[in-house]
């Protein structure tokens, strides 16, 4: 088939002798990858910290403000003296 013939020709064109790998690529990739990992770990830690701080702040607020307690009524005076 003509189509596969052409593809084979182009493949041959692409398959040239490979140059040896430059030695600096591996250490550089490891350095950048390690930095990426460290950044990711830091970001994760910061997010957890933020989450914990938010939880603590909410608990403290809830314990001081007690939003579940019915607020004292301002419109009707409390019935006293019965």
């Amino acid at each position, binding site marked *: 088939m003509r189509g596969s013939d052409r*593809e084979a020709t*182009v493949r041959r064109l692409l398959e040239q002798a490979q*140059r040896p790998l430059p030695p600096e690529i591996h250490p550089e990739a490891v350095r950048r990858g390690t930095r990426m990992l460290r950044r990711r770990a830091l970001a994760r830690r910061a997010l957890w910290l933020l989450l914990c701080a938010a939880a603590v702040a909410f608990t403290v607020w809830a314990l001081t403000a007690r939003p579940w307690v019915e607020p004292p009524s301002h419109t009707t005076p409390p019935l006293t003296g019965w």
Partner: protein
Amino acid sequence: MRERHAYRAARRAREFEAFVAGAAGRLLHAATLLTAEDPDDNPRARRLLTLSLAHTYARWDGLRGEDPYDRTRQELATRFARGAWHQHGGLVRSRPHPASPLAALTPQERLIVVLRLYEGVAEEQAAALLGLSPERVRAICHRATTTLLRRPRGPAPAVRTAKAVPS
């Protein structure tokens, strides 16, 4: 905890080194074809490969049986596509080097030819990777091979003939 962490880091470093020793030569060749640089002077391809490898290294523990070569190739392709998009018509548009076999092609044609013919990625996979339809990938590949075979090894033409064989 710390001991396990260190053990995992050591294993990652060992496995990654073996992977680079085995696969990076071929990937560098693919990257050089993509950037259409001189095989002996290819700073853009090296940078592309280094960044893709760094990405694979950072994801090494989370690969879970996925092929690292596949991952790196994907990263390389998307990174190149993104870079080509940003450079398109920009000030730092790089000229293809005449020594490159793909100098006569546009960046997108190069990407598809390298993925399909050099790396042997299936049409559907390449299409999904680039966000194109498989028919479009086939058409571009056909047009690119036509352009390549019309001028087998000559230097890149100054103005590429826009009229290719209708696909």
